[in-house]
Structure formats: structure tokens, C-alpha cells
């Protein structure tokens, strides 16, 4: 028996039900674009996206394709290529629920789930309009005598359990361990998700746990429910340590996506490839 489940990208898509809470990696930690394309092709609906802590083209495409009902993020942006137009338009036209957050809050909510505690405290944030609009957050007076300022209000953030998390990585070893390097936010996302699937550039015939140093670069196989090969699977996004972003393509997208029609045309071409 294989020591892990090797799937196709389509089989991973089949594990993502309508309406589920899907974990979304930042542009620097392995965006699963080939998976995203298949997800859009399938016509998935009412996805709720949890971005750690932001999304770029992946989120904008899913929103533009009508797959998303809700998004929690610290930012949705195309970076140096400007605004994420499908996102901005959806907000301006009130067709998307945005749970505005801030990076450390998005990390802390998953760390709460990582530890199976109902909440995490966070400093800062109080007095911002982010905090004022988050009804799922609460503020309590500091209950500790032994630590902190005494009459300090403390912000508590709820644990968030993801349903599915999918990301793209350079490689898996023969036992299903995924090489993530120092993109350790991927481990946090995986720990906090019920199901985890990974698309990889390649599967190498090695045991990365044979050596303490290469082991240190891995997300252990025990958190991974299935792996699919996807050559160039982050394109046009970068895969850190493997390839850079295809900036021309992202620029083309950013221009096309400025209008609904331009976006539709772009996507029609992309999905037909």
C-alpha cells in the first residue's frame, strides 16, 4: 500500500463541497492555481474563503467567477499590479460579504484551533473600525492578576476551524511529507483544517525525515489527506524557492479584470486551455 493517497487535481476538487470554509494561502506561500482553475470549471458555489492573511489573483478569480459568498482577509490585492478589481466591484455592488481583519488576527484564530482552545487574545486592534464591525470578536477586562495591565481591555478572537485547505508546493517525498521550507504559515493552516490537500511539482523518491535538517523543512504527512501532481501548478503565481511569478500574465489579468466583460473573456480563454 502506498504510504499516501495520490489523487488527480480533479479528485481534490471533488473533496471541496459547495459552501465550505476554504483556507487560502498568501501569494508567497504556494498558491494552488491549477486547482483553482478546476474549481472554477466545476462551478463551485458559496465558498467561504479564509485568507492567511491575504489573497491575490486566486481570490479575485474565484470572486469574479461567482464562486464566493464570503471572505475573511487582511487584504485582497494584485500587489504592484493594483487593485483586485473583481473583489472591489463585488464589495462596491454589495454582492460579497467581507469580514475585514488584520494579519495577526488571522494567524491567531488558526493558532487557537491548532491548540483546540476556544479563543486567542491579541493586543492592538482595539479602537479600529475592524474591531467595531466584528461581532464574532469580544473584549473582556484582563482577568490575570499575574500578568499585564490591570484594567486593560483584552481582545479575544474565536478559534476558526477550516473545512479544507489546499496549497501548492515544490515537492512531496515518497512518504507524503511536503517540503514547505520556511513557509511555516502553511503548517498553521494545515493544523487548523479538517482536510488538507496539496498539489506538487514532483514526488521525490526520498525520505526527508531521514535527516534532521531536511525534516525541518517539511509539513509532516500526517496532516495531508491527498497529493496531486501539478506541473507549474502555481502559475502565474510564484512558487518560493522554485520559480518566480509570471508578472506579464498577472498584469494581463489585472487589465482584463478591470471590467466584468474583460474578466469573462480572460477566464473563458484560461479555462479552455
Amino acid at each position: 500500500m502506498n504510504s499516501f493517497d495520490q489523487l488527480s487535481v480533479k479528485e481534490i476538487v471533488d473533496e471541496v463541497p459547495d459552501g465550505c470554509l476554504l483556507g487560502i494561502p498568501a501569494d508567497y506561500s504556494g498558491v494552488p492555481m491549477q486547482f483553482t482553475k478546476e474549481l472554477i470549471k466545476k462551478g463551485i458555489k458559496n465558498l467561504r474563503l479564509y485568507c492567511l492573511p491575504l489573497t491575490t489573483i486566486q481570490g479575485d478569480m474565484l470572486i469574479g467567477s461567482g464562486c464566493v459568498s464570503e471572505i475573511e482577509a487582511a487584504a485582497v490585492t494584485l500587489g504592484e499590479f493594483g487593485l483586485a478589481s473583481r473583489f472591489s466591484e463585488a464589495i462596491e455592488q454589495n454582492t460579497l460579504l467581507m469580514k475585514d481583519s488584520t494579519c495577526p488576527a488571522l494567524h491567531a484564530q488558526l493558532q487557537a484551533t491548532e491548540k483546540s482552545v476556544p479563543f486567542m487574545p491579541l493586543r492592538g486592534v482595539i479602537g479600529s473600525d475592524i474591531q467595531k464591525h466584528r461581532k464574532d470578536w469580544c473584549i473582556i477586562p484582563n482577568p490575570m492578576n499575574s500578568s499585564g495591565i490591570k484594567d486593560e481591555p483584552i481582545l479575544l478572537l474565536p478559534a476558526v476551524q477550516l473545512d479544507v485547505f489546499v496549497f501548492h508546493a515544490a515537492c512531496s517525498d515518497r512518504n507524503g511529507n511536503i517540503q514547505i521550507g520556511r513557509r511555516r504559515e502553511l503548517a498553521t493552516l494545515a493544523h487548523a483544517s479538517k482536510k488538507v490537500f496539496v498539489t506538487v511539482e514532483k514526488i521525490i523518491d526520498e525520505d526527508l525525515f531521514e535527516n534532521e535538517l531536511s525534516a525541518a523543512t517539511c509539513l509532516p504527512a500526517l496532516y495531508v489527506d491527498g497529493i496531486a501532481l501539478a506541473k507549474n501548478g502555481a502559475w502565474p503565481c510564484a512558487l518560493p524557492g522554485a520559480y518566480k511569478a509570471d508578472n506579464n500574465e498577472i498584469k494581463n489579468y489585472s487589465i482584463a479584470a478591470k471590467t466584468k466583460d474583460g474578466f469573462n473573456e480572460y477566464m473563458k480563454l484560461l479555462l479552455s486551455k
Partner: protein
Amino acid sequence: MELNIKREELLISQLADLLVNDKHVAVGAASPIPGAAALLAKEEAKIKNKRLRVTILHSNKYNNFTDGARELFDCAAQGRIDTFFLGGVQIDGQANINLVGTGTYPKLNKRFPGSFGSALMYFVVPQIILFREEHSPRTLVNRVDFISAPGVSEDNIYRPGGPKYLLTNRALFKFNKNDKKFLLLRLNHNETVETVTNLTEFKFDVDKNISEMINPDNERIHILRNNIAPMVSEFYPEFAKRIWDV
């Protein structure tokens, strides 16, 4: 010989002056001018036999972290980052910043990316430098439409950090925490207190020793163009090409 100084070089030089006492400067996403300033300050510190650590997000080379994307925020919360830069779609006279959009939240007229990590960084980094090139009544407003992070907090809020300076294309302000008000310190060439007042919606004080921004000297320009420009081109290639043609 007087060199021809570019606007961006002057701003880099202004920012670098604010970093001379730091041990660790961090620079967020899409910030070529602060990034160049931090690297310039590091290079100048080295000459004086001092150590300045620079962390630039989105650069692999100047990424000092190994604990994932949360480490920037944890590190800042631990007090290990002396200076960080923040921007804003809008910045108001109490140093509130808005990175979310204009209009009445959540029904915005114009949606921008979002608050990123500002809502924590603004509280914990001792020297936050607000940097926004566009200086207009549209950007420097009386009251922001959405507070991504507040400029000041109540006394019972844990807040070792906060706004110290605001730099724009036209002027450098210092933020006075007690008065909750900006103080105009320096003017760019060709600017006057009057032009700046007209282009700023919020009210501010004027320093009695107000002066013009000083151009970087030849040594600094030399370091910037010869040493820093190629470093910047690693992670902001389009900016480096435009300014220095490298």
C-alpha cells in the same frame, strides 16, 4: 559638483535620517522608497561600525524570519522592531489611517485592498513612519472614512508604539502624541507653509524651526546609486529601473 537629485532620492534620504538610532527596521509590501531608505541606513551604519538589521517582506534575501508569516507580528509585539512604515488611502489629523476604502463602511464607494497588519503594528512598533507620496486634500483628510488603525489610544490600552512621522511628496511632519496633532517640520523644495496648508484637509501645527528638506550629500548619493540601487532591483525591479536604470 552639485548632483541632480531625484524626488525619490530626496524622500529616501529623508527617511534614512530617521533610522540612525535603530537596530532593526522592517519594511512591508510594495514599499520601494522605505526599502531603499532602510538599506541606505544599514550601509551608512556599517561605515560607522554600527549594526542595523533590515527586514524586507517579499524579499527572500532580506527576510530574517523562519517562523512563517506570523513572525513579523510576533517579533514586533516582542519589541524587536524599532521602525516600521505604514501608508494609507486616507490619513487624518489624529494619525488615524484608512487602508480599506472610501464611503460608509460596509457599503463603500471605492474599495481598497484592506488593513494588512496595520492594526497591530501601529500599536507595538515604537517608531511608525507614515509614508504617502500623494499629498492632497483627498489623502490627508480631516477624518478618515474607516479606521484601519487608530493614531492614538486610551491610557489603559497597551501601546508602546505609534505614529512618529508622516512623510509626503511635499512635507515632513512629526506627530505629537499629547496634542494628537501633526507638526510641520520640513518642506520640500518649492513648497511653502501656505501651499502645504492648502493641500492638507486636516489642521496641523508649524514648527518654529521649520526648514527645507536638505538634499543628500554627494557621499550619500554615491552610496545610494552605487550600492543600494542594485540591492533594490532584486525585489523592486521596476522601481530600480525607473529611478536608476539598473
